[in-house]
């Protein structure tokens, strides 16, 4: 455990029990961080989108509407929980908690600073991305488990989307890891001590940002979630208390995506004056706000629009980025 301080030591617990205790304590801290970040981000989203649209956003509940999300949460969990008759109960109810578990787990294993990490795997980035691509598959399963043909069709789209954006994402990732000389997260961050990868490979940054938007299911790529004009998305049959989990999952994934972008391109926790974790969170927050602004102003793409875009633009650009980076500075 990369802690400067050991809870277990303080409580005089030794051995395996101490390790487990430390891990659990760290996990609780990460969970608290994620909840706080998500809460703040959802408030910022509502305000920023509202301001772009020329209105104020939540104002009444709490100062500047900060308690609005709490009020919505309470409202949602007090509603009726129902299941569709044809649904496969176990699959349907488990799908979203599993996705949530995956997202939280990935945030858990990310090091937040040199002194604050649960583990620093030597293949950290690769591991993260392998596990990250499970999510659209679980969306797929969830769509089928709804017992609703529209949800199934909509969930199939998430898999088709996966095909389009995953490859450029991984190519850029490989480029960054090659430039950094290692797959481990601290290795990548330390390699950016002199200049961030965003400056060194701007094309890669753009491609990665767009592909990450698509991975997170955010506008302009939210066909599977809110294709609500025509086919109600895979989220139709999710009941209100469950929907709180979906919202939590959505913002947690955004947090994860922003963290990854901050680590890979914006220098992670590098920076003067402030503690490293604060830098990391600030950078990831900036990326999240950028994603929010894109959402407020973009038009949703069609399915084949995304496929064409992914294969005709993202993939060639990512390969171009790879070639340029190799020629310029990867040795």
């Amino acid at each position: 455990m990369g802690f400067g301080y050991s809870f277990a030591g303080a409580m005089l617990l030794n051995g395996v029990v101490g390790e487990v205790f430390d891990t659990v304590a760290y996990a609780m801290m990460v969970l608290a961080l994620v909840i706080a970040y998500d809460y703040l981000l959802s408030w910022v989203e509502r305000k920023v989108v509202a301001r772009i649209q020329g209105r104020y956003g939540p104002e009444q509940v709490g100062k500047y509407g900060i308690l609005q999300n709490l009020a919505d949460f309470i409202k949602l969990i007090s509603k009726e929980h129902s299941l569709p008759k044809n649904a496969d109960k176990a699959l349907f109810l488990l799908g979203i908690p599993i996705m949530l578990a995956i997202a939280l787990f990935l945030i858990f294993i990310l090091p937040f600073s040199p002194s604050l990490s649960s583990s620093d795997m030597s293949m950290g980035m690769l591991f993260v991305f392998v596990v990250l691509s499970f999510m659209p598959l679980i969306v797929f399963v969830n769509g089928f488990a709804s017992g609703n043909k529209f949800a199934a069709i909509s969930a199939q789209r998430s898999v088709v989307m996966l095909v389009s954006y995953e490859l450029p994402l991984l190519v850029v990732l490989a480029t960054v890891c090659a430039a950094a000389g290692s797959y481990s997260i601290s290795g990548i961050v330390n390699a950016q001590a002199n200049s961030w990868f965003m400056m060194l490979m701007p094309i890669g940054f753009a491609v990665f940002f767009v592909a990450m938007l698509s991975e997170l299911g955010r506008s302009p790529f939210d066909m599977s979630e809110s294709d609500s004009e025509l086919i109600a998305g895979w989220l139709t049959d999710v009941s209100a208390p469950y929907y709180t989990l979906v919202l939590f999952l959505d913002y947690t994934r955004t947090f994860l995506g922003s963290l990854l972008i901050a680590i890979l391109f914006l220098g992670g926790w590098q920076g003067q004056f402030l503690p490293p974790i604060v830098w990391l969170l600030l950078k990831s927050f900036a990326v999240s706000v950028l994603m929010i602004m894109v959402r407020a102003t973009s038009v949703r793409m069609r399915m084949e629009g995304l496929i064409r875009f992914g294969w005709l633009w993202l993939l060639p650009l990512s390969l171009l980025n790879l070639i340029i980076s190799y020629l310029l500075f990867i040795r």
Partner: protein
Amino acid sequence: MSTRINIGPVHPSTHGVLRLLVDIDGDRVESVEPHVGLLHRGVEKLVENRAYMQNMPYMEKLDYVAPLSYAEAYVSAVEHALGIEVKARAVYVRTVLLELQRIASHLLWLGVMANDLGQFYTVFMWAFRDRDKVLRLMEETSGARMFHVSMRLGGLQHDLPKGFEDRCHELLTYLEKQVDKYRNFLEKNSVFVERMQGVGLLDKERAIALGVTGPVLRASGVNYDVRSNNPYYAYDALGFEPQVRSGGDCLTRYDVRMMEIEESIRIVREALNALPEGSALGMPIRFALQAVQERVSVVKREMPRGECMMYLVADPQQPYRLHVRSPSFANLSALSEIAKGCKTADLFAILGSLDIVMGEVDR
């Protein structure tokens, strides 16, 4: 292997109560069958039992997005039947109000259509704010933002209030900038262009055969606009020019409507500068019984959505028969032909570009 899905009467956007039965094969729409009649209020039968001026609110509720257009068309039909002349100043004031109503209607269309495409309410909010400004201006003339009931036989209920011209000119300069802003915002968005270009193609012969009307017809290259082919009020004197494009896809229809907003702004400006002196007041609601000059009067007007024909068989006190041929009815009947073979996401782009208001489809 096609699945039949029901896009039910309840919609996320303000199309109204339209039910579409869509046969989908994979990602492609095989056939669309619109089921209308869910908003049928029996207006054509109701007006037969009420006096002329009592029917005004019915007419306004037909197209609830641009109510003044219908009120004016109906009053025009009655004036034609009873042989009542419209006062000179009222002609210009009516032109001004009609064109302002057209701008408001097109702004609503813009917001709703962007919404349909997945644009998360941003353009919707902006367009509605501008529409609100226009409605506030029209509120000055009659006291109501939407259902004005301010048309009277031979003129209007109230003349334009003092200072209306200045406020209107201010609003028009503001709207010009806003239209440019919207065009910039949407047309530079390559996703928007990709979703609209080449979608819902309708060439000239097919457009005429299917009987579409209004901007949909003009976007297919047919130069027909009631305001120029069959001029009424001040359009002739102000040199109205119809906006015709050839292209026939959704992007062209969008283009035609944006150009129509600009043309309307110009017409309002010139009409305000050319307002004749005099009174614009028409006959009061309880007017003396007039003799029917023409039993059958047919009046054609250019609504924001297309051409509307009012067929009135007049009795001295009430209509004997009133038939409203509304533009949305004609456009919606062509939907099943236009949308054949398109992608599922395109269906809503097409529906948005046809600009349907269910109130006038069902009457």
